[in-house]
């Protein structure tokens, strides 16, 4: 008998748009005396021009290098010295900055974020310093380790055609090393306009007070032109694609498969069954691929199927992908694994999904969404991303219900589409060939 799936506690949302175009979402919630502030800029790796690969990420680092009223290192000191934590991250379609703090530090956090939205310090000295830091980040995460950034850095080259979708978002060292303060100023001017950003505030605060502070600190950021947002969608693959990379540091082979999926924003209803399908296929020990590839046929050491290059189905616009990856022994071929994955898709497409299996998957999805929503930062980020990507912060609170409404027929139909679709396959082979 399926359990009753509890729903997300309701968080009232308050929205305003400042005169300079900044969209603001306030989500008060007094369950704990903590607050989160998140600023999402509508520019990511996909907006980088040729010759400037990695620039969106480098610029994210530079945004921590001081601003008009906060010298270098002072942003970190203000947040941490208020008892909070901070970070930033660069995605395909946006770059975000966020902090979680004791509730009494809200005004200070808003001041700090507004100060760098108005005027970050963009000097050649700090840019050169952060180029060195980013190169070490790339070495630690990609170059000096086996399976570095596999497959998010390599599979797009097989799956897509345009520069926006295929280029290295971490950046080529040649491009990084040539970045100048003038490039940074231009990038900031083009993409970091307040009207190209969303501010979300969550946690323990009074709406009226927070509104006054937001107006005071962000209201004085000068309005600038909102950049045009290019479309990054690509037509479906017209043939199967296949590529091989050799990883001299790896000990065993790995495989990645990518499928194009419906537009996650414009065709949201068509996209949702793929979310449920990826969970049914790969989440938890009970999933189809875990049972087939690990427990029954012993084809893989570990497996994962997920939506989006970074595993978040809802943080990218079109084009996005369903991804599969596995590590496997040398005695297993990539073709064996591809056939088994396709066979499982075919089985869902033809045999369908029974009620108890669908109920299990829905229970897991609900549990994961509830767990993400417990920390104030998780909630606040989902409101900001919902507002930026989907145009509605309410997206975050509606999502559990929308996913719970996905029925067995649409999951089977999604599996049938994937079974029929062309794939992009990338094999990683261990060896000294590179």
């Amino acid at each position, binding site marked *: 008998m*399926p*359990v009753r*799936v*509890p729903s*997300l*506690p309701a968080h009232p949302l308050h929205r305003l748009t400042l005169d300079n175009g900044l969209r603001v979402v306030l989500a008060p919630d007094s*369950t*704990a005396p*903590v607050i989160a502030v998140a600023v999402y800029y509508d520019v990511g790796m996909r907006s980088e021009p040729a010759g400037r690969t990695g620039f969106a990420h480098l610029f994210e680092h530079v945004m921590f290098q001081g601003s008009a*009223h906060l010298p270098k*290192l002072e942003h*970190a*000191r203000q947040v*941490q010295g208020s*008892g*909070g*934590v901070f970070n930033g991250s660069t995605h395909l379609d946006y770059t975000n900055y966020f902090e979680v703090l*004791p*509730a*009494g*530090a809200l*005004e*200070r956090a*808003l*001041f700090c974020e507004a100060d760098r939205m108005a005027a970050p310090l963009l000097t050649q000295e700090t840019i*050169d*310093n*952060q180029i060195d*830091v980013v190169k*070490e*980040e790339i*070495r*630690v995460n990609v170059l*000096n*380790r*086996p399976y570095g950034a596999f497959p998010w850095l390599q599979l797009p080259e097989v799956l897509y055609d345009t520069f926006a979708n295929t280029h290295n978002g971490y950046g080529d060292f040649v491009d990084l090393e040539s970045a100048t303060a003038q490039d940074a100023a231009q990038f900031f001017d083009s993409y970091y306009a307040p009207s190209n950003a969303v501010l979300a505030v969550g946690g323990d605060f009074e709406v009226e007070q927070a509104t006054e*502070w937001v107006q*005071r600190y962000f209201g004085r950021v000068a309005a600038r032109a909102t950049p045009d947002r290019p479309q990054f969608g690509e037509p479906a693959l017209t043939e199967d694609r296949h590529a091989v990379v050799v990883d*001299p540091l790896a*000990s*065993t082979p790995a495989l990645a498969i990518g499928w194009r999926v419906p537009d996650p924003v414009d065709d949201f209803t068509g996209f949702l069954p793929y979310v449920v399908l990826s969970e049914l296929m790969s989440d*938890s*020990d*009970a999933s189809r691929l875990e*049972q087939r590839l690990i*427990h029954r046929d*012993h084809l893989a*050491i*570990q497996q994962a199927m997920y939506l989006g290059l970074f595993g978040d189905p809802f943080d990218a616009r079109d084009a996005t992908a369903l991804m599969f990856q596995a590590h496997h022994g040398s005695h297993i071929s990539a073709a064996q694994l591809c056939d088994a994955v396709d066979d499982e898709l075919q089985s869902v497409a033809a045999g369908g999904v029974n009620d*108890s299996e669908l*109920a*299990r*998957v829905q*229970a*897991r999805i*609900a*549990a994961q969404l*509830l*767990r993400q929503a*417990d920390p104030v930062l998780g909630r606040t980020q989902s409101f900001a991303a919902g507002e930026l990507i989907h145009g509605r912060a309410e997206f975050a609170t509606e999502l559990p219900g929308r996913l719970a409404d996905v029925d067995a027929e649409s999951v089977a139909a999604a599996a049938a589409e994937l079974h029929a679709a062309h794939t992009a396959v990338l094999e990683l082979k261990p060896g000294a060939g590179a």
Partner: protein
Amino acid sequence: MSVEVTDETSAFALPPLIEARAARAPRAVCATLPNGLDTLVVRRPTVPMVEVRLRITLPAANRATAAATTARGSLMSSSMLFGTAQRGQEQLANDLAAVGADLSVSADADRLLLSTAVLRTGLSTVLDLLAEIVTSASYPSAEVSAERDRLGQRIAMALTQPGVVAGMARSRRLFGDHPYAQTMPDPAVVAGLEAGTLRRTHRERVRPYGATLVVVGDVQPATVVRQATSAFADWGGPAGRSRVLALPDFDPVGITLLDRPGAVQSNVRIGGAAVGRSDLDYAALKLANLIFGGYFSSRLTENLRERNGFTYSPHSGIDNAAAGSMFLVDADVASEVTARAVHETWYELGRMALAPVTQGELDLARRYALGTLALSTATQAGLASTLSSLAGQGLSPSWLAGHQKAVAGVTVSDVQEVSRRYLSVSSLATVVVGDAALVEDSLLSLAAVRAPE
């Protein structure tokens, strides 16, 4: 004009910090069940979920069996969910997923940890399944044999990660033949394990005495204690010895260099003895660690990353284990600046030990320590993991309030005193994994270079 200037100044003055209402201290309901299982329940209904942690102590009995204990613990943890007396692997997985649970089992040198989140409505199911697992995990031979091969391959993969290799080299340097040197199971020992060995070990070692069940979330504590009492009624066994072996002394002189030809980066790992959470010096050491390298606003980050660009994410920390606590420093640095990065790290350690920190540095670190403690216990998952970890060291939830008070009272001279004792370069061992052809000569200008243990 002056009015404008005043307006401008006040508008841009840094806003004040307002004293937030204090976080509610977790009110834990504690009960020792008839079978000896310590149970800790906290009502925290922020979302309709429950976090569950079942910690079972499992230390190596002696030095001679350390390698075998590590290998068995590792294979046991990855095979424990392959079925019980009542249900097979798939049925167990289905029944857990049906209540939204994703149970994981992990092992380290001190304990086994069964950990999950579950929908509020499924807690009693999860407690029943946990009890079934600890009393009757079946370790079916064919499945264990397949998992043994996968584990061997996962170990082989881990051994190609430079960070893993560097951590192992440091552990061998610090712990010698103590079980804590075994941070990774020996593939040869894993290859020789049989399902029968796991079944026997499970019967002998997976016992309620010394184990702790932590439940945090949208629950009524009294109900949970009743459910747990009934669910775990058949889990028994005599109170076992869980003696922890004392940590050995180590020789801190010289830099261990482990050659990794072709490496484009060096992994610098430093470590030495520290004090644990129950020690009077712990609060001061925690703040000394923060000021040195424990958070972004630290001297180490300012020096290595923000001034010199040698590294992406240098950090230091205190690792608390049952046999003792260690002070650890990690930095992955560009090959060509390896010796300079070691030198700067030593310089910052020396500065901590020899000169007082500023009151400003101390206050910043103190507010960070208090604030992040509140943040980390503000979520169901964070609180459950914190309480379980405290229980692993024999500490009750009240330690949190006492620790906050201790942090509030630390002075500049306290920090210098603990730094002199625990952050002195002369008492810390340094390990470097990197391309010896590129880094050895320059490291020799700092200290003697020694071969890995």
